[in-house]
């Protein structure tokens, strides 16, 4: 996979994560709802960073879709969806780190992977799992 392909895949996944947080945030009570809003903001920042990287490479930025196949009826569903969204992002950020020799892209990947791992652990703890961490974020 080329760096451009990796960045494009990441933008598409960030679009989906942003949509997913919009759906799941409505199912959460405070203070979790605020945490979801902060996560949503963080994903928008990453999406915009990635889109800017694609533009500097004169590559097309994939648009967001009208809808994504996500649903959350209750708070537990919403938290489980948040965990899945962060785990999905972790996979792709790790793909970037392992798919480039560019130190700046690797540094971005390490920082973003770390953020997703921290958020995923928080959501798992909100589901009652302790300590909520995983040994190898982004898969083994």
């Amino acid at each position, binding site marked *: 996979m080329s760096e451009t392909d990796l960045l494009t895949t990441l933008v598409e996944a960030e679009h989906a994560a942003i949509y997913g947080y919009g759906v799941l945030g409505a199912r959460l009570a405070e203070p979790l709802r605020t945490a979801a809003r902060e996560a949503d903001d963080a994903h928008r920042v990453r999406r915009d960073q990635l889109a800017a990287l694609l533009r500097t490479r004169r590559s097309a930025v994939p648009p967001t879709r009208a809808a994504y196949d996500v649903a959350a009826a209750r708070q537990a569903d919403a938290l489980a969806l948040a965990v*899945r969204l962060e785990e999905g992002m972790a996979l792709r950020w*790790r793909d970037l780190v*392992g798919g*480039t020799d560019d130190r700046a892209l690797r540094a971005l990947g390490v920082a973003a992977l*770390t953020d*997703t791992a921290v958020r995923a652990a928080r959501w798992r703890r909100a589901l009652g799992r302790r300590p909520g961490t995983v*040994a190898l974020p982004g898969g083994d």
Partner: protein
Amino acid sequence: MQWSSVRRRRRRVLSLAAPVVGSLPVTGAPVTRRAVLAAGALAAGLLPLSGCTGASPAPPGPQPAVDPDVALREAAVRRELALLAAYDAALRARPGSAALLRALRAEHAEHLAALGGAPAAPSPSVARAAGRLSRLRALERTAAAGHGRDALGASRQLASVLAALAAAETSHLEALA
């Protein structure tokens, strides 16, 4: 190709984790990132069982290139051994936190395995570990920074592992709070 097998296996996980993005067909035997990296560690002579068996002197000619991964991997192993020792000390000092400490220690044991295992002789600094949680957090923070820094210059395969280790150590900070 091994690496594409790794990717295919991960896509199978991903199709569960993120239904929003289409999954790819899954074929071939599962090969984990860890297995691939452990094989690399074996080749690099990091595991004790590789030993020193070559008796013949090096032939004249161009020197083989030094693999930068060897030193990076050893540094990461030292960080994980220091953490394991610190968790052992904390488990002795804080039996009331045993469940949490054991769970986090187990993740560091997985990190060590993902790096290909421990060298035969532990580093001398390991014995001086203290059992305070603040010490654990400081070690986790230092390890995360070291793993993250070394991920920038490692091979792609090792960089991927070091990035995951950096992320995991950072996630441990809040778990220890």
